[in-house]
């Protein structure tokens, strides 16, 4: 190891001029299989004020639990037209939303006896904004998902905070889920060191 990885710096307040061209809020065009979900949320600061200059990036597997990436060597189908990448800015009220499909379960770390495990369906998330010198990393999990109880990442989190990672159903008919990013305070979202 001869060179240290680049030091992170804030995106500042004006990142939209660099990012907008590659923003994606609809990840799953027609023909992509899977349960459609719309995820809406809000980014709130330590005063509970909305963050109007944030950006949320997501990465997820397809409905079979396969990532569109050469290091995913699982024998599972690709979904043509589904990359698993999304990026959405927050609006003046700190809100963001994206429409995607619920990912399938991806492999987790091997168990203590070398047995294979699966992670619960989840989306990995990077959050950037003015005031953040480095990105925040978190995960979105899904409600009513039995696999959540055995998910290795959720089990690394204090039980009282796990609910910050699990989206809430806001309208059972439409499939809309709510998942907020709370930067500080008693309900602070769990952020991961990756």
């Amino acid at each position, binding site marked *: 190891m001869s060179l240290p990885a680049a030091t992170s*710096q804030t995106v500042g307040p*004006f*990142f939209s001029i*660099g990012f907008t061209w590659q923003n994606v809020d609809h990840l799953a065009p027609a023909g992509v299989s899977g349960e459609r979900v719309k995820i809406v949320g809000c980014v709130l600061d330590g005063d509970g004020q909305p963050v109007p200059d944030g950006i949320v990036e997501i990465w997820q597997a397809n409905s079979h639990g396969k990532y569109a990436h050469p290091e995913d060597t699982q024998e599972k189908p690709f979904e043509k037209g589904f990359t698993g990448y999304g990026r959405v800015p927050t609006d003046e009220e700190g809100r963001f939303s994206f429409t995607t499909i619920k990912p399938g379960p991806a492999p987790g770390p091997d168990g203590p006896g070398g047995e294979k495990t699966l992670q619960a369906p989840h989306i990995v998330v990077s959050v950037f904004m003015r005031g953040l010198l480095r990105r925040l990393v978190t995960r979105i999990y899904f409600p009513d998902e039995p696999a959540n109880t055995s998910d290795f990442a959720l089990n690394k989190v204090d039980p009282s905070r796990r609910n910050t990672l699990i989206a809430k159903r806001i309208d059972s008919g439409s499939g809309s889920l709510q998942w907020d990013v709370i930067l500080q305070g008693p309900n602070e979202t769990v952020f991961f060191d990756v």
Partner: protein
Amino acid sequence: MANIVGYRRPREGTQPPHLHPAYRSSIKRAPQKPLVYLPHTLSEITGPLFGPEASNVKACDLTRQHSGEPLGERIIVSGRVLDEDGRSIPHMLIEIWQANAAGRYLHKQDQHDAPLDPNFAGSGHTLSDAEGRYRFVTVKPGAYPWKNHHNAWRPAHIHFSIFGPAFATRVVTQMYFPGDALLPFDPIFNCTADEEARNRLISLFDWETTIPEQALGYRFDIILNGREATPMESNHGGKR
């Protein structure tokens, strides 16, 4: 999918803390609870990749995006995308954005009383080539005032965003210019404790890429997290 090979964590002191009170905006936005350490899984060692459609001549030459030429000092910013072991990383998306030569961003929230340039939008993107090299043509951004503290001025900088090969390697940083008198006073530049890591944010003036009569060259290599060691690695020793 056994034996996931993760990416290395940052070396001590080489990344900024979330809370850096001298940078006032961090006070209400930095998380207060400790981060939860997560070993890398397939979710972190994969990440979005972008194909050749993400690269075009206009997108990497910020001086050719309008009918006329922008004002300012024309520069060439080039370098390589490398990992911590010095291996080049090809085909990586790099996005940049910056103020114009007068220190003004083409953004509705930028209220700095400096002129916009109708021939400069200040954003671009490209992919690193097969050897990890990239190159942008642009103009040197101006310094500009901000409200962080009395008489606060940001040193001239260009924002860089790189996804890298995996979710774990995603980084957004800023490139500065050598000899900028504002650097010692800038809380954002100075947020990182490790001086060597900090100074790597400063590009190097480069005669080799300077074009006579046309543009000054600055070199800025982008180093991404290296890979954890694995027993398999000896089999791939030839790649170096």
